[in-house]
């Protein structure tokens, strides 16, 4: 089956000739029309639309946005905050960057609608420090919107107002974790909080109820407010509604961003057709489907079982190419949809070295608060670094897996899973390479195969 066309809902204007990131251009294209209609509705209605839409968070966890909003404590009397997670740092992910740089007003409109729906009067955009130009663009856009009465106090003459402030991070992946982000916003070391009791919806920023949403998710809210939740839910597939932006990088002919209805494109269609297949003379070896935290898939594997299709249970027998790119399918076959960052590795890549690269990332980014992740992530990095640069032992693969098993499920935040899953899945799927690495690395390195560690 040929790949479907892209459905550019969020990315409609991203590569458009002549489209600029200023307010005038946005409004020429109908911008802020949705906000104008939204503020005439009851806030609870807008929350309802988001619930009906089935929108799932696009930051990595895939948590239903409507459920997240409904958990907010609205009885405490404390102010409710909205925090936009623009800390895009999951390796392999590069979509929020383009929204911020090329279509910032879409985000601002999404933010204002979400704030209105949740009676939020102060919102922060936490943008990673490595997007300095993006921070300036957002500040300019917010100023434009305020000047036009679309953000800030008393928007559109309604009496409702919300200030949006840009807050720059400074190079920490853990600030993408919602409670780590909140701690960072409070001016402290970004140590994620224990949940219970510190669920952001109840005890978030400044111990007030807080909503933390990804950039792309908030853009979807704008479209949901526009077309209605029911109509949105018809896009994509049941339980995996709407569109999502897939970011493909690594060993394909045409890496880049592609927006599809969720679940309507398979891995094979994406990599072989849309991205043009492997580089000349190479074959696909492995793919990480949802950012580097997701478990790796080995080309040639089969996934078998029963899954729900409508009201029935049907059998499935998939190769990597057959997997539909939606949250549930990817979870079902033992990985995850995550942030949509698809990293493709071909047969030139040593999986030991690739894991070494990933382990170095996680050990560098671990905040250090809790024992398993702090000590375990660095231990795993030291093992793979030793394997690559020093002595590799046949039992190192088993040791790596055992260390990873001691981390996942035992930590304060999901970083534990994030640093353990790569190791667990690489060993599970490519264990033979780890056992044989000592021998394999004696062979001279092929030309053009870069170092990874």
């Amino acid at each position, binding site marked *: 089956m040929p790949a479907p066309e892209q459905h550019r809902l969020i990315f409609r204007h991203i590569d458009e000739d002549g489209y600029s990131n200023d307010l005038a251009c946005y409004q020429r294209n109908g911008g802020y029309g949705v906000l104008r209609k939204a503020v005439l509705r009851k806030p609870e209605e807008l929350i309802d639309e988001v619930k009906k839409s089935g929108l799932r968070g696009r930051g990595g966890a895939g948590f239903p946005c409507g459920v997240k909003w409904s958990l907010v404590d609205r009885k405490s009397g404390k102010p409710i905050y909205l925090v936009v997670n623009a800390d895009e740092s999951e390796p392999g992910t590069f979509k929020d960057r383009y929204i911020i740089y090329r279509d910032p007003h879409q985000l601002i409109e999404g933010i204002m609608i979400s704030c209105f729906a949740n009676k939020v009067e102060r919102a922060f955009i936490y943008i990673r420090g490595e997007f300095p130009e993006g921070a300036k663009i957002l500040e300019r856009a917010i100023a434009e919107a305020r000047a036009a009465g679309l953000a800030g106090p008393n928007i559109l003459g309604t009496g409702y107002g919300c200030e949006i402030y840009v807050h720059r991070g400074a190079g920490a992946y853990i600030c993408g974790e919602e409670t780590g982000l909140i701690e960072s916003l409070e001016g402290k070391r970004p140590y994620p909080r*224990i949940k*219970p009791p510190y669920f952001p919806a109840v005890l978030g920023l400044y111990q007030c109820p807080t909503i933390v949403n990804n950039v792309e998710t908030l853009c979807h809210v704008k479209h949901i407010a526009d077309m209605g939740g029911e109509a949105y839910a018809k896009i994509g597939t049941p339980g995996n509604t709407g569109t999502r932006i897939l970011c493909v990088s690594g060993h394909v002919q045409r890496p880049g961003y592609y927006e599809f209805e969720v679940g309507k494109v398979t891995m094979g269609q994406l990599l072989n057709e849309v991205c043009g297949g492997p580089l000349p003379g190479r074959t696909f070896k492995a793919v990480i489907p949802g950012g580097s935290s997701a478990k790796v898939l080995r080309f040639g594997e089969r996934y078998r079982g029963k899954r729900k299709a409508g009201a029935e249970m049907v059998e499935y027998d998939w190769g990597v190419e057959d997997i539909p790119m939606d949250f549930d399918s990817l979870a079902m076959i033992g990985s995850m949809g995550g942030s949509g960052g698809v990293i493709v590795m071909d047969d030139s890549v040593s999986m030991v070295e690739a894991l070494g690269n990933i382990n170095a990332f996680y050990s560098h980014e671990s*905040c*250090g608060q809790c*024992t*398993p992740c702090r000590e375990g992530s660095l231990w795993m990095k*030291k093992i793979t670094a030793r394997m690559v640069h020093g002595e590799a032992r046949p039992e190192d693969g088993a040791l790596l897996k055992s260390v990873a098993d*001691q981390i996942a*499920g*035992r930590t304060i935040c999901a970083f534990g899973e994030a640093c353990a899953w790569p190791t667990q899945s690489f060993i599970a799927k490519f264990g033979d390479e780890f056992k044989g690495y000592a021998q394999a690395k004696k062979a001279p390195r092929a030309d053009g195969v870069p170092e990874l560690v």
Partner: protein
Amino acid sequence: MIQPAATDLVTVNIDGKEIAVPKGTNVIEAARRVQVDVPFYCYHPKLTVVGNCRMCLVEMGMPAVDPATKAPVMDPATGKQRINWSPRPAIACATNVSPGLHVRTTTPMVKECREGVMEFLLINHPLDCPICDQAGECKLQEQSTGYGRGYSRFIEQKNVKPKRTLLGPRVMLDDERCILCSRCVRFSKEIAKDDVLGFTDRGSYSTLACYPGKKLENNYSLNTVDICPVGALTSTDFRFKMRVWFLNQTNSIDTESSVGANTVVWSREGTVYRITPRQNDGVNDTWMADSGRLLYKDVGGPGRLESVRVNGAESALDLAVRAAADLLAGCGAAVVGSGRSSVEEQFLTARLAAAARATPFLVARAGKGDGILVSSDRNPNLRGALVTGLISALPAPRLGALGAQIDSGEIRVVLSVGEDLLAAGLSPEQVAKVSVIYLGTHANATSAVARVLIPTLTVFEKHGTFVNQQFRIQRFAKAVPGVVGATDDLLVLSRLVAAAGGPVLGGDVGAVWASISAAVPALGTMSYANIPDTGLLLDAGPWAALPFPEGATLHFKPAVPAPVEASHV
């Protein structure tokens, strides 16, 4: 004291044992009550919960109910309600009991969690046990023995961090041993109110530090050494002095102020090596001030009185007692008691004053209260003097009344129980006008001119009780033998009482208490032996109207707000 009404009780099941505990109890504390030990590092009952060590991971489950009908779902195998065990372990310190909560601590999953955490804590830990003070009271040692795997699989290079950095005058930091539990950081911020510690760098390279140039030097810095579960923070005073398993532990009371912080005195073969706080949730929680810990240095210090003297010449106790009684027999005697004497000593002092028809005085001792565990009354037992009837009003700041009586010739003999009269307010001329009988531990200006000098014991060398600012009577016990040449205060005082014509009373704490409980209504039901380790609150009613000087401390609120200290205008 009327007990507060029983709080809501919640029933939980821990390793098959059911127990009802007050609402708000966490699983670690609940488990303790059924003798189930849940290991931990970062948790401390008096600090905020952070849940970062992950050692207290246990399995938890809730009874299964039908979501629609709420009826219990039964397990056909056991005939009891099925428990939905969570596939993920949860930390016990941050989980408060809820009705029906089931906890398992002996399953394979919990065993693996503990082995995993122990392994992780040890991979970068230096092999310092042979040179580390914490050995013998180290949580890492105890829990790796109890819950660790017993061998290491780590063959990489360990992280190296600064060793032996002086964090402050009393605290030494060995960063490699630190397990980043953050107890010290939380303590400094929350209890000592001196936010001076923090973690620098990131990940496994995180390091405990002060801001360069700043020091951990507040008067509660040594509590971080107590609560450090490993040997990262150690006391510079105690460093390398003694292995803790050789030390005896004796319960005592800090004599620094009327707070009466509970302490433990650690000693071996007659020498005190250190003092640490003892838990008393009603007085000092698990803390004490650094300044109180150093008081043990008085025991063998310079100036310790070691021989009985009459008119400057060495003498025997009997002769000294006779000489003192002769002096007191003439009219015009005053007895200066001490707020640092024990209740028993004050009782006997009062009897002595009565027998000698001497006017009793007490020396006030004011200082600046810090609002935590050092109060503005630096007498640990002023209230003992009130309860025993030695005095009936608060002492004047200086011994003005006594000085006037000396000047007028009314008073010609002064017996002082451990108080330096010149430091307390008398002038050298006034002291020169009287005959001084001095009972005390250290030489001072008064002991130098005493006609009769009888060395007595420090608080570490005798038994007794003090009454603290809360009117709580608390016991302290003898930790080390007295120095040769010193006599137990109770023995000396009872002999003096008898020699002055008073009743013959016992000379040890048990016998004295027989007399005390007979004579002092407030203490009528007690004996030294039956006072519990956490003390007993007395009825403060009879003295409620007195203007006690103390402001609030950790567990004390003044009945009447203390007068505002004069401002620096």
